[in-house]
């Protein structure tokens, strides 16, 4: 890093309100932003735990309407699971690039992650649409209500993640200091990986293990 860039970093630390906290000395010696993100993810476990439990309780309640055995398209869901898993790889590569202060590569991997996430959401929309055409809507049965609520909430989380990723690409593109958003990339990366691990659980408990 050149002398001039070091001066720029110091100036940014002094005047940027957003990133100033990342360099502050805290009582724990850890980033408060990162602590807050882990706490948030811990609380999200309770949210998804409730939704998964509700589905497990009601997955057999579909008298007179198609149930999981008739509806599931395992090959499609397997491919979309694989796509989301690979998006975790591209996300960790983005975090790695950000820590090496390579903004161009960071933006590239973030964009690829967002595209893979969009593919997953597209597959989910297709799945929901096909279920609807087969006569299974949100209020058709307790099974369908709990299924759409669980997977819908997950889909919303993925969509929010995609919006954050693309916003981050825009912010990094306009930033003049290489690597100054490394912590933000890491925090959004944690959120994205969390969305992935929730799907790992949903894929096994909802799709692969029969009711």
């Amino acid at each position: 890093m050149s002398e001039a860039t070091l001066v720029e970093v110091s100036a940014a630390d002094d005047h940027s309100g957003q990133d100033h906290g990342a360099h502050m000395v805290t009582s724990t010696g850890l980033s408060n932003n990162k602590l807050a993100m882990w706490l948030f993810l811990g609380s999200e476990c309770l949210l998804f735990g409730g939704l998964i439990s509700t589905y497990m309780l009601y997955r057999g309640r579909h008298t007179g309407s198609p149930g999981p055995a008739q509806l599931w398209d395992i090959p499609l869901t397997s491919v979309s699971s694989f796509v989301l898993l690979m998006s975790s790889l591209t996300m960790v590569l983005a975090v790695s690039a950000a820590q090496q202060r390579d903004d161009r590569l960071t933006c590239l991997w973030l964009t690829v992650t967002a595209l893979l996430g969009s593919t997953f959401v597209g597959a989910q929309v297709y799945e929901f649409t096909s279920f609807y055409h087969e006569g299974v809507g949100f209020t058709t049965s307790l099974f369908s209500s709990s299924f759409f609520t669980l997977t819908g909430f997950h889909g919303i989380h993925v969509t929010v993640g995609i919006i954050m990723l693309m916003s981050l690409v825009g912010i990094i593109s306009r930033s003049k200091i290489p690597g100054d958003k490394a912590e933000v990339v890491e925090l959004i990366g944690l959120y994205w990986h969390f969305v992935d691990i929730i799907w790992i659980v949903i894929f096994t408990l909802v799709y692969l293990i029969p009711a």
Partner: protein
Amino acid sequence: MTTTEHSDHIEHDEHGAAHGDAGAHKPNSFYIQVAAALAVITAVEVGLYYLDIGKLFMPALLILMVVKFVTVVSVFMHLKFDHKLFSYLFYSGLFLAVGVYIAALMTFRFFDGG
């Protein structure tokens, strides 16, 4: 190494230590290998769905699910390399959720199919 480069390294190391991510920097090839292993496990899971392995089916799927879950959390989310406080925060939420909802499902006599 010049003085400015040395300062840059010190600054970066201090920044990393403050975030509790010392030792988190792994080569990209490591992450690619882990992702390949996760993809293989997913393929095995889907394969088990189509095979008839009797009573081993559910335990096998649950074990593979836990392996994938822990791998992503430990490696991709860097929890294995990060400060222990992050692990306490996340796993306390996770175990609280698992405990509470297993208890709740048992009250519905879930395991009796009632």
